[in-house]
């Protein structure tokens, strides 16, 4: 059997296992290990496995993931989301659809201390959804705004999927975070505009109410200074060259813990709950990493990625169309898979092919960063698009009284902006790369 045949069998086996509910980590690990055995023999396989767990778990750049997850948990349980929503609602809540805009704003701000979209959705929903219902907002606008706003958790740095991309492609985490900043803010402003337009067309979606007095507004604003402070220290430190992203995550986690304790929201029990919640997610991410490592080691033996890259470069198709096709493929994959497995599974195979293309005459590093942000945005679409947007599920479950179908209907205008934004980023790389050249001249 040729290596190529083994590679294809491995790939098919992996997909088959995934379809029948075998956890993705094992669905990648087991066919990968069998393929390695078939190609290189058992001694080689056992030798690789001796060091693979240690090599992956001790990787310094990856240490940032548990630390950022811990920071997100402290922020979630520490009541920071409530303060954020209160402040945003005090300023924009009174206009038509204002509370939905406040949800998006507070999700964006929360995304600046949290790197996961599901956590962002869940925490903002708990504080914002009851308020929106109280003021007579329609369920579909409320849940759609919350599910979509939650994607800002990964679009605005810190972002766990972006760290995974950085590791897989050997790019700088700091530069990718800088590149995500403008597209992330653009996403947030666009979502707010979508809410405004929807409410102008259908005023019953989110009725206006009396404005908050200025005294209360300033008071609410005072409540969010810890979040602003943490964000400035962490990212100021990273971009001012004071510390690395991993150190920044450690600083962020400790500061967020202190902020939560100062608000008397984090006691011993809550902190233990934060520990086990981030334990779950950290282990899940690293297990998928271990599975993907085994799969990729075998795929590299078959040389499939380099064959694919050579084939793609030889195609007589404009490179931008190839990138667009890849992004469409990501949207489709996002319908059945979660973002982390998608990245770990596809980036090692697809990335070399993309790097072989000439895109806007960008240098290798800039191309990698630009493509990473495009992938991140596309992954965000997968989180809210039917039939299985993960954020939609989470928000709908927490909300309880809005049918899933309504939420999906409500999500469509937001999806339109997502698609438009990806097109903009595709056509104007400067939007993404501008800030990178400012911070890293």
């Amino acid at each position, binding site marked *: 059997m040729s290596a190529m045949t083994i590679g294809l069998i491995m790939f098919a086996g992996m997909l088959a296992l995934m379809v029948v509910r075998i956890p993705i980590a094992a669905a990648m690990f087991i066919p990968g290990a069998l393929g390695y055995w078939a190609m290189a023999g058992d001694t080689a396989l056992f030798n690789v496995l001796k060091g693979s*767990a*240690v090599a992956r778990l001790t990787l310094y750049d990856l240490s940032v993931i548990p630390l950022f997850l811990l920071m997100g948990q402290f922020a979630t349980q520490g009541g920071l989301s409530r303060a954020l929503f209160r402040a945003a609602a005090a300023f924009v809540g009174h206009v038509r659809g204002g509370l939905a805009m406040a949800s998006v704003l507070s999700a964006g701000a929360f995304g600046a201390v949290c790197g996961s979209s599901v956590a962002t959705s869940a925490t903002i929903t708990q504080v914002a959804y009851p308020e929106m219902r109280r003021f007579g907002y329609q369920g579909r606008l409320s849940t759609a705004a919350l599910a979509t706003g939650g994607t800002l958790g990964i679009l605005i740095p810190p972002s766990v999927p972006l760290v995974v991309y950085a590791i897989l492609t050997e790019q700088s985490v700091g530069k990718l975070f800088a590149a995500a900043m403008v597209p992330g803010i653009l996403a947030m402003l666009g979502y707010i505009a979508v809410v405004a337009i929807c409410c102008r067309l259908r005023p019953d979606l989110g009725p206006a109410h009396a404005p908050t007095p200025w005294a209360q507004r300033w008071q609410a604003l005072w409540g969010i200074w810890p979040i602003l402070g943490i964000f400035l220290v962490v990212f100021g430190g990273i971009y001012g060259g004071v510390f690395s992203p991993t*150190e920044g995550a450690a600083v962020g986690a400790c500061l967020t813990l202190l902020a939560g304790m100062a608000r008397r929201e984090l006691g011993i029990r809550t902190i233990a709950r934060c520990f086990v919640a981030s334990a779950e997610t950290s282990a899940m991410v690293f297990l998928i990493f271990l599975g993907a490592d085994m799969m990729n080691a075998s795929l590299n033996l078959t040389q499939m990625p380099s064959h694919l890259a050579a084939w793609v470069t030889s195609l007589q198709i404009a490179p931008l169309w190839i990138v667009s096709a890849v992004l469409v493929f990501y949207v489709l994959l996002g319908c059945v898979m979660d973002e982390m497995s998608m990245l770990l599974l596809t980036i090692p195979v697809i990335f070399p092919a993309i790097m072989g293309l000439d895109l806007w005459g960008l240098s290798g590093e800039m191309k990698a960063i630009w493509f990473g942000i495009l992938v991140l945005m596309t992954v965000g679409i997968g989180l809210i698009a039917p039939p299985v947007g993960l954020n939609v599920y989470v928000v709908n479950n927490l909300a309880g009284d809005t049918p899933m179908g309504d939420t999906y209907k409500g999500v469509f205008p937001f999806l339109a902006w997502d698609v438009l934004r990806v097109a903009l980023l595709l056509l104007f790389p400067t939007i993404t790369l501008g800030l990178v050249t400012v911070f890293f001249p």
Partner: protein
Amino acid sequence: MAIKALLRTLTWSAAVLGGLIALLVGGMTVASVAMRFFTTQPIQGDVEMVQMGIAIAISLCIAWCQMRGANIIVDFFTQSARPGALRALDGLGCLAMAVMYLLLAWRTTVGAFAVHEAFETTMTLELPMWWAYAALAPGLALAALVALVQAWMHFSGQDPRRLHGQASQEEAFA
């Protein structure tokens, strides 16, 4: 039943310990950053301690992740499958994870002996490298045990969520 309760307490405690180690590593990093900022001299070998600490922390979390059923699956294609079929598939899923955990635990242990004989150490602190290997194996082994118990529960028609009830968590807190 006593064995299940023991497994639950063990797994939960390991996860909390993992979180605590991660937080301590974070605190140490903050101290190191502050020292570098104010006295230009960071804590010696801080990067190595982060690497080793986080690796141990994550290995301690794996069993809890397995117990909570937090490993990602694709459930899109089996939405209309019968409950019995789902149970069988999920049992197989647990077995597959157990194979992965066992293989990694076994090889990491072998790796620990190999590295020990080679006297490999870390760069700055010269910590023996075999510590990292040896520290990862117990977490992986515990995860394998959890996965095997869950597989057995799936196949014998019990709900594996009973392994980690909300009530038992409150017990553990008290």
